[in-house]
């Protein structure tokens, strides 16, 4: 059911989006998931382990892979992992985390700051 697309992927030779390494991480996930689904604490530990071993760039690739394989649980899991890493952090921190450059005009960014002033409360220290 979930893995009909896996077969497709392996058959599709022109697929450059998902490397083999990524596939080997994503595919064993369902079993792991079923085992630790009920236990929240173990999930947290697994999440932390994952973050230690995997760089943000790889997480992006994992998200793409899970999306391509139509694997909703893995997709939610990876997205949530990224979200947890940047939760309550400042805009600057998030930019650095993703490796983004601010391409706004100087006035533009200030304007946005004012517009969304109501959201700048209760943010963690960097």
């Amino acid at each position, binding site marked *: 059911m979930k893995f009909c697309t896996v077969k497709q992927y392996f058959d599709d030779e022109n697929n450059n989006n998902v490397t083999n390494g990524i596939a080997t991480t994503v595919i064993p996930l369902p079993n792991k998931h079923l085992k630790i689904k009920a236990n929240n604490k173990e999930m947290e530990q697994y999440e932390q382990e994952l973050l230690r071993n995997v760089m*943000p760039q790889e997480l992006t690739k994992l998200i793409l892979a899970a999306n391509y394989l139509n694997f909703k649980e893995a997709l939610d899991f990876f997205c949530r992992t990224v979200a947890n890493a940047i*939760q309550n952090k400042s805009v600057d921190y998030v930019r650095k985390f993703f490796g983004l*450059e601010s391409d706004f005009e100087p006035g533009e960014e200030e304007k946005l700051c004012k517009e969304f002033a109501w959201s700048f409360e209760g943010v963690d220290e960097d």
Partner: protein
Amino acid sequence: MVDMEEGFNFMEKEHKIDMISELPDTLLQQILCFLPIKQVVQSGMLSRRWKHVWHTIPVLEFDRTCFEPKLWCRDRKKTCQIQRKRVELYHCVEQNLLSHCREGLKINKFTLFMKLSTRKSVSRLDRWIDYAIKGDIEELNLEFYRSLCKRYLLPQRVLLAKSITVLTVHGCRLESRYFDINLSSLKKLSLSEVHTNDQIIHNLVAGCPLIEDMRLESCYGMKNIHFSALSKLMAINLRYNVLEKVELEASNLYDAYIQENKACEINLIHCKNLKKLELHTECMTDEWFHYHISQLAHIEKLIIHCKMLGKIKISSQSLKALFLLKCDKLVEVKIDTPKLCLLSYCGHSKISLSLNASVYFSEACYQMVRPVDHWDVQKIELLSKLSNSKLLYLTSFYIAKDVVVPKELRDTLPSPSYNVKQLKVAISQPWNGHEIDRLVDSLLWISPLPEIVVITYWINVKPWKDTTSFKFSYKKPILDEENPSCCKFLPNPCWGHCLKTVTVENIKVRADEETLKAEKETLEKYFYENAKFLESFRFLCGGVG
């Protein structure tokens, strides 16, 4: 929380690789869905590419964290600031909803926490709800706190929205003229602090054939409930509604929670598959109890709070967990339940308890009622009846001194809990370090061969408790006399003769060195003096603060 610096070292990288931009907008939105709304909005400031990503995010949760409780304060400048922020927030919400409508996009979830103060805010809200419904909304959560005006009248459109699967409403009114209610996809309904009446509620329930989970709390105007033909209903929660009558016919109902303070007639016998039942009521008679429980052939978990019950008898082949709480008038309980593995009793000790107890419970809990009387023979006898269990949990002691069983009783009675392997005790007041050995001595009399003993003290800061736990290991007992007095009543020799190792672990917020040192010394002395063949004593401390 993970230490990001350790894992990534991204701050030290020479060139930063922007990999997130590889993801399409929909996947970026997936990530944003897990963030609080304030951060979602801030994402618009990350870069040009991100500016509009959040506009069409399918989950919109403008919850309590967005809305400041006070609109006014003494400082005029600050009041202006607060009001300006409020206007900007409203603008955000509106903009977001409009973006969805304009692009014909679906809204999966819309959560709104709002204080309605003027007619303008009411019409604004009506408009927002319109947009949400146009967006084929699936989950709608509305929480209103009114100030001066009447409660918000929920628009009829909401009750005709075919796409809604989860509806939560707090603090509004439902009108009588809603006869066509059609919530054909509704699975989960929660109404609280709602002004309504019996007719509306019944029309509502009739209009959602797929309903699985229902929660009705403080619904003013509701008096009688008679729900039938709810073939998909699995869980129901009724509380503080001042109901006079509750009658449920739902063959798939497996979880029911009813807490009604007034005299309320309850009829659940047609819910044949009920597995979990929790009742808090003032007017349950012994007869009602017997009749009803005997009709529930599949009941597995039963929680009863009732001040009127006097003598009860429970006979069930399926019951696994039983909680008898605050049943102040209870004098006799006969329990015949071969599968029971959890028993929790909160009440006085002058009760006649008979258990068909061939089964070894996994957990038993005895909560003594306040004011906690001193230990007496009846208490100890009750305790021994509850002690055919692996884990025994004694709660509601006020101070450590209350746990100590007087010598007169210890000399004349057998230890009640010699089968217990794990003993847990909860005490309300933080204790004074010097008494720890008396406390432990008493606990080890209650349960003479435990593997683990845990003492919990409730405190008023996170994580709300301090714990001292003891792990014991034993070896073959060495008896130097034929019938030692310390275990004359016991089937096996007590810990004094076979204790091998003790590990004490303290998990305390603000652990102060002096107290810990005193505790360590006291305990070390106590164990080495009383366990003649003790090989090792370890004292560990884990600070939390």
